[in-house]
């Protein structure tokens, strides 16, 4: 692999991690969704670059799913849903932004340490891609933990899934990547539809997931 293609993949994968951090400190739902769309866009570039570098045309399918579905359709759907359900636009964090960012830094450090040590047999690109992908996955999980609001939990899950697609695209020649990305898109679509159809708004008055907890366990 030549220096340039190596650098470009690094740039794009690093961009994904950076945007994951941006997701952590958004305090408004709309801007959260915009940042997510940006992440999906960078993901589609990254996957397309992998398709080009690995000469694996099937990855272009995954890239175009990321571009069409995650960058355009899902953000628009979420926008309309927020407007229709009249969801509170400000996002509450369970943990303050400062500690969250520090936690995020620790997670990225952890994944870099773990992956770079472990995968010395794998080629450098795959190894570093995996480190970035694991960071995105862990940051997505962190976001799901620190947010109360159901829509931002969904966004956290979707960004986590971006990390998985990055890992799958980076694993050279891995079969079923396209199938998995299609499967995940279905999953995400169902989540979004689920929030809407299950009428979480109707039943809980807010899409605040802490409201769900009023019926926790046996407290009846």
């Amino acid at each position: 692999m030549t220096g340039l293609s190596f650098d470009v993949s690094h740039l794009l994968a690093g961009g994904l991690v950076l945007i994951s951090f941006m997701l952590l400190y958004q305090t408004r739902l709309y801007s959260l969704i915009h940042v997510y769309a940006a992440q999906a866009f960078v993901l589609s570039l990254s996957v397309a670059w992998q398709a080009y570098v690995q000469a694996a045309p099937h990855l272009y399918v995954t890239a175009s799913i990321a571009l069409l579905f995650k960058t355009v359709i899902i953000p628009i759907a979420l926008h309309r849903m927020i407007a229709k359900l009249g969801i509170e636009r400000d996002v509450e964090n369970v943990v303050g932004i400062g500690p969250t960012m520090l936690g995020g830094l620790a997670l990225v450090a952890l994944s870099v340490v773990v992956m770079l040590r472990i995968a010395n047999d794998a080629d450098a690109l795959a190894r570093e891609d995996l480190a970035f992908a694991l960071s995105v996955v862990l940051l997505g999980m962190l976001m799901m933990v620190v947010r109360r609001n159901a829509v931002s939990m969904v966004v956290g899950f979707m960004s986590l899934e971006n990390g998985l697609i990055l890992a799958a695209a980076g694993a050279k020649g891995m079969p079923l990547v396209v199938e998995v990305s299609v499967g995940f898109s279905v999953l995400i679509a169902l989540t979004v539809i689920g929030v809407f159809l299950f009428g979480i708004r109707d039943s809980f008055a807010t899409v605040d997931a802490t409201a769900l907890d009023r019926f926790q366990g046996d407290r009846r």
Partner: protein
Amino acid sequence: MTLGAFDGLSAILVIPAVSALFLAIVPDYRIASLLNALASLFTFAAACTLLGAGRPTGPYFHVDDLNVVFIVLNTFVAFTTSVFSASYVPHEVETGKLTRYNLRFYHPMYQILAFAMNVALSANNIGLMWVAIELATLTTVAMVGIYRTPEAIEAAWKYFMLGSVGIALALFGTILVYMAARPAVGEGLDGMTWTILIARSPEFDPALLNLAFVFLMLGYGTKVGLAPLHAWLPDAHAEGPTPISAVLSGLLLNVALYAVLRFKLILDANARAISPGPLMATLGLVSLIFAAFMLYRRRDIKRLFAFSSIEHMGLIVFAFGMGGPLANFAGLLHMTMHSLTKSGIFFVVGHIAQAKGTQRISEIRGLTVSHPWLGWALVIGVFAIAGMPPLGVFMSEFLVVSSTFARSPVLAVLVVFGLLVAFGALLLRLQGMAFGAPSEGGGPSRASVLPVGAHFGLVLLAGLYPPPPLVLWFQHVAAMLK
């Protein structure tokens, strides 16, 4: 012979898939529930043909002596549960909890779930297995939320979120396994084919495999319901329709466990990788003891037995984690006994909740007086699951404890402690529910005797006189598991 086996394999996949499509267009729910049971019966019969015939294998599907056990058990419980479901569903329609429209969704989903579980169990490709487990999770999420009450939606949401995270972690682990295999096996499909992975495992990078197993254990462990990732399980059991509680406890947890076992074998085959046993044994033991204490605080009858499922899955994972022929044998036996007993209990509990109109333990009293049949069935079920002597669970628990005692007495003491704590909690709750003056309210029940009788009968048989061919078979599989 080989052709016959292939037919059996395709039958257990095709029958549920086709009946799902067909059930979606059957308008009458009574006919649909009968057809559902019939389709499940055929699937079970097809699974039985796999027992005798040769073992089909291919790049996508693979049947060996290990997963035949899971497939036959799974299709059997899926069949009995569909019979129970046929007697459960009309009451839900009459009380207005479910509409006919709901049921046109419910029956196809049941078959899709059966299809997904059969694919997961017979898959040779670890990616395909992952997809199938995802599909099974999604269908159960939809069914848990089917009552549309705030509680049911919350349970479905929680299950969905935790299940998705678990599934995401499992996928990351799967990718790591592929990365570990690639230098040795080469690119493409081979790197995800289980039979090739297990054969070439000694050449894989051990560090990557270790990391992969951690992700797989946490990911699929969420679906097994291991503490501390169990939070979805009690809610999903309590708020969904009872047939789904039975399927979750009796089947879906086993499917996830099966996935863990498959990856454990890959690690076991690589001498340089960590031994996965201690990790599994620790998680299992923690779940066992945690769930045993949680049993005391339950006020909802389905939650009570959901926590009991966590406890037993903990014990099973512990047994497989300990490894060795005897502990593996005990783990397999306990898994079978737990599936049969727990789904049997949920059948009884479903009828009790319908007859009494409540799931609250405090409002269910004196069942042996008001509903003798249900009351005594509950007594037998709880005795069985608590591990009382003549029944099969006693046998398997005894084997787990004795095999552990020979190798690590301290752990054995902890296991016995957990089991006794759980025993106390279950008997305490049973006392109030089964005996004493009956509580007010509640109508007659139209319980289906057949599924309950079949399950408890088998558990009793296994406790009194386990059939020698079965014992031989399990010993053989236990040796395979190392």
